[in-house]
């Protein structure tokens, strides 16, 4: 029953996306029915556009760096919630939620003001920093309850058994929390990869992919934007798969090591 619902949920989620993919192969320039025939022309056109490639690479760079920063400081922050208390916890909790409650455009303007005051040139760096401001709340919020109530006694037990703090973190805390952290990291990447409203203000003269798509759409909405989007999602999924395979391999190896060590103890 529940499984059927889950399959349905995914199916409904992907129906519009399937149409986006289908029409990326449309032989005519229209994004309406009837579907006239298949063609690769939009892919050829997208791949022949160097500015598009630049924009895509910029978005990947910004997305990866944003995710890295957010994941590191975000998981630290989420772990911190279990350790601090009282008023400090309330204030920090509010601070890590507040950026979401303000319009994105406002965040963009306020960051622009800050960067101007500091004399910082707008570039992909300022875009990255700005993205961290909005991905961080999502990251913290989506792991906080998991990490906050993470049973500290497990860590304590490991420490009592003589493990160093970092070893405890690597071998005990991390494996338990990994699925939550990975999910939140992917979400952070996705948010950064698709952000337009703030990016307009804080970017210099290097475009990101959504900015580029947005400006393509000003001129005409054709299957070209679909093809662009399909290329982007395909590359990103490959990237994520590759990274999770690397992570998975390392985790498997760690498990193996742990296993052999345990057997050695016995």
């Amino acid at each position, binding site marked *: 029953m529940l499984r059927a619902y889950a399959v349905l949920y995914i199916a409904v989620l992907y129906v519009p996306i399937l149409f986006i993919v289908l029409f990326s192969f449309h032989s005519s320039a229209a994004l309406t029915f009837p579907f006239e025939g298949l063609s690769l022309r939009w892919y050829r056109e997208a791949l022949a556009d160097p500015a598009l490639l630049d924009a895509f690479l910029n978005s990947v760079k910004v997305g990866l760096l944003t995710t890295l920063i957010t994941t590191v400081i975000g998981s630290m922050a989420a772990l911190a919630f279990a350790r601090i208390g009282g008023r400090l916890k309330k204030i920090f909790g509010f601070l890590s939620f507040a950026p979401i409650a303000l319009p994105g455009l406002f965040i963009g303007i306020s960051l622009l003001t800050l960067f101007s005051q500091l*004399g910082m040139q707008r570039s992909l760096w300022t875009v990255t920093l700005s993205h961290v401001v909005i991905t961080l709340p999502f990251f913290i919020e989506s792991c906080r309850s998991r990490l906050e109530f993470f049973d500290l006694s497990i860590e304590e037990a490991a420490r009592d058994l003589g493990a160093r703090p970092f070893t405890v973190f690597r071998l005990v805390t991390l494996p338990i929390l990994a699925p939550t952290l990975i999910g939140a990291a992917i979400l952070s990447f996705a948010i950064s990869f698709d952000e337009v409203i703030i990016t307009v203000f804080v970017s210099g003269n290097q475009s990101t992919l959504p*900015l*580029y798509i947005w400006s393509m759409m000003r001129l005409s909405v054709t299957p070209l934007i679909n093809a662009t989007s399909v290329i982007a999602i395909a590359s990103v999924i490959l990237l994520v798969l590759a990274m999770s395979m690397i992570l998975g391999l390392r985790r498997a190896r760690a498990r193996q090591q742990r296993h052999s060590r345990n057997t050695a103890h016995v």
Partner: protein
Amino acid sequence: MRRMWTHEEVRAAADGRYSELLLSRRRLLGMGAAATGAAALGPFFPRAARAEVGGTLRMMTWQGFDMIGDAQPWLDANGVKTELATITAQDDVQAKFLGGSPVPIDLTEYNQAYNRFYVDELDIIRPLEMDKIPNYNKDNIFPGFYQGERWYWDNTQWGVPFTWGLNSLVYNPAMMDKPTSYKDLLKPELAGKITITDEITGTWPIAARVAGFGAKYPNVTRDELAEIFEVMKEYRAQSKTFSPSNGDIISLFAAGDIAACFNCWSGIPFEAAKQGVKLEYVIPEEGAVMWCDAWFTPRAAENIDTAHAYINETLKPEYQAKLAKATTSGCVNHNAVALMDEETRALFNYDDLDSVFKTSPLEGIPPRESDEFATYDDWVRAYEDLKIGL
């Protein structure tokens, strides 16, 4: 070279006195004088200036208007690399230059309506050194686009027009009869079948004309403004949506969601034909509105000589003809007309541009400050209320 800062500005920056930092008329006067001085000295060093073409040219244009593809051989020959950012709305341009550390863009464009605003109030345009743009001359350029109040005043050329078009009424002949006036859009059978382009430089003057105040625009009183938007309420009631972009309008036509568009870019029938929809543009009795984009070098520009050389290059007939075809727009160099294909040439009446200027004038924007007339801010507010449906 980076622009020099005055002592006052540095102090203002240190004090965080934004008002003085953002804009100051004093700075404009000072910079203007310095720049005119430089322009006067310019002819003595033409060769030296030329030699500086090269490096990276940072541009910001509307999608499809950069001409980098056409200019590639020239760019390669001069060792110029390009970096391109795209504009999604004219406001993007000012957003790049406001605040204490503007983005160092060397070359970008402005819609004619923003001319005085950019120069007098925002002070983000650097005067052009016309000796470096010899192709912009009386012999090459249509009289309507040579100098002219939108680009040239105070003995200074602020922008060089390079592309233009018309905004008027576009309709789908399969869904309605040919309209002769905007009033035809109010017919009951078209209810929910029109869209209004959500773009102020065209929609505002056309709204004024529809209400009978076209001759006064952009200077109408507050009472007249109220009347204009009272009339516009009828058009809102007929409309399906306010469209934020040309691409959006084309997709509405292609989807069969609308039959006509109020204040529509004349290139839309051409673009829509690619999607299999046959549309026509008409100039109704209220006339059309001309738009014209001009190159300018911002105050924050660094690679100034290359920017000038690029402007000069792209005024050549070959570039102009290719751009007109690619973007369904008009050219400013009359030598380009002969190089165009039939379809591109037929877009506008090049034989009698004077009459085009007469029926479809270049429009400005309402005053930023005025006691007598409705200000830009008043218009924004009235227009917002219209969209909300108050």
